[in-house]
């Protein structure tokens, strides 16, 4: 069985977000890039499947050469090879179209992505790819089991979860719950050594101009916090009710 795990390389979640070039570009200076957290759950799930079912796991990412260290980490975690589609990855449609070209030419039984990336939060790449390559697709997955030639997939929805059965192949978009946080794979020394000699191939890309980014800005800073004495909870309730009118 062949599994593709599409990953996005995003700023570490503790990063302070700043912009440069007159607020038109994200300021990467001093930023540590990581595997997008939602994708990391998917990657770990793929490695679990590989351990049980002899699968081949290929990580695929659209990005510039700076993301290769993140791809090496994915290889150290246990992926067999990596593909970097060389592109600035400026928006979701551009990323999705480039991924679609690769995923249409190379057949996979299962394609795993994260529900959304921690930077641009689009959450649309998987759906666009699914349409472009004509596959079924389930979002917000919190469970995945293989059952013969089908997958049993559990997804989150408003007010609950739903379990469905879909024939292979399928695209799923995972999140926390697909595997537990405590079970996330961390690279060990042997994995890191092996990752150095695993294949990382670079493919050419195309550019698409559906969306143009104009500028970024940050939410205005909050005023000082108004402290209320713990013996005076009634005052807080009065403020929330009469002044803020939110109760």
């Amino acid at each position, binding site marked *: 069985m062949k599994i593709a795990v599409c990953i996005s390389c995003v*700023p570490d*979640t503790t990063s*302070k*977000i700043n*912009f440069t070039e007159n607020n038109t570009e994200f300021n990467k200076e001093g930023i540590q890039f990581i595997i997008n*957290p*939602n994708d990391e759950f998917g990657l770990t799930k793929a490695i679990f499947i590989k351990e049980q079912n002899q699968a081949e796991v290929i990580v695929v990412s659209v990005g510039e050469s700076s993301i290769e260290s993140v791809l090496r980490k994915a290889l150290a975690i246990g992926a067999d090879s990596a593909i970097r589609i060389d592109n600035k990855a400026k928006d*979701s*449609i551009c990323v999705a179209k480039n991924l679609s070209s690769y995923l249409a030419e190379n057949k996979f039984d299962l394609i795993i992505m994260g529900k959304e990336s*921690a*930077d*641009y*939060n*689009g*959450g*649309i790449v*998987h*759906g*666009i790819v*699914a*349409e472009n390559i004509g596959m*079924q*697709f389930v*979002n917000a997955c919190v469970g995945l089991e293989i059952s013969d030639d089908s997958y*049993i997939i559990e*997804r*989150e*929805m*408003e*007010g*609950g979860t*739903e*379990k*469905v*059965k879909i024939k292979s192949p399928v695209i799923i978009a995972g999140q*926390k719950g697909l595997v537990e946080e*405590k079970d996330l794979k961390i690279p060990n020394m042997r994995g890191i050594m092996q990752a150095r000699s695993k294949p990382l191939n670079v493919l050419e890309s195309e550019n698409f101009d*559906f*969306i*143009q*980014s*104009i500028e*970024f800005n*940050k*939410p205005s800073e*909050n*005023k000082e*916090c*108004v*402290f*209320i004495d*713990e013996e005076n*909870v*009634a005052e*807080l*309730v009065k*403020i*929330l009710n009469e002044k*803020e009118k*939110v109760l």
Partner: protein
Amino acid sequence: MKILVFAENWDGIFKKSSFEAVSYSRELAEQNNYELITLCFNNVSEEELNKLSKYGSSIVITTNPIDKVDSISMSKMISDLTIQHDIKLFIFSSTYSSKMFAPRLSAKLNSSIFTNVVELPSSLNPLKLKKKVFSSKAFEIAKSSSEKNIIMLHPNSYGVKEFSSDLKLSELTTESNTEIEIINIKKSSGKVNLSEADIVVSAGRGMKGPENWDLIEELANCLNAATACSKPVSDIGWRPHSEHVGQTGKTVAPNLYFAIGISGAIQHLAGVNSSKVMVAINTDPEASFFKAAHYGIVGDAFDVVPKLIEEIKNIKN
């Protein structure tokens, strides 16, 4: 020109997010003299359907329901409608199902798609929109180069507005030929939906253990609020993952957010900082949540929350 808005229902009931999408679309249509078409499933009662008119729907197309997990049938149905009606702009609330079918639809139509949109467009030709990025740590202004566009609204960002209009109904029959077999659905009963709740009561490790969540649930109940939690609390299994708010969980934007025993890591704040009013309750006066909160009480949740419940019950009676 025509705009299409999908008013999603859950077991025959529309939610606030559906009305928000309808009133957003109506205001946009009125400002620009566009025709607005509302699409919904025909599993709703007449009384429920009439609610749509209060938020601005007039031409409503109803169709037989499609399994929401079946994004292929959903996107095909909307795409077929597009051909009949020459629709150029689509408005969806960001729900679990629209996040599956809307990107598919954009690929079918070769359109642009904008997610986490928080305001009406600042221009229509070209379409210019403001959207949330970096888990609410920033906004991006983006412009479309396409003739067709899909706007996905961030819940609780525009709000609901009332308009007066009369409903004109027409029916459509849709074929759905799904290859997806639904095995079961598990519902978390009677809870307020976290993403669109007006008030969220959220708690962290300061609650010391899952057995103490009765207090949080009681406060939430008397406020008709949704309950939420911090990442460590869902990681150690005190609360379900679906309650985790923050950068790697859900992003919420309620009118009022209570952070009880949550220190306020940057990843947590990112998921909640669009809330209109934030109240922090923490024993540690240095907790970083106090830097983000509008109101704060330094004190033990086990003392403060019961008083809060009592005072809220007083004003509610």
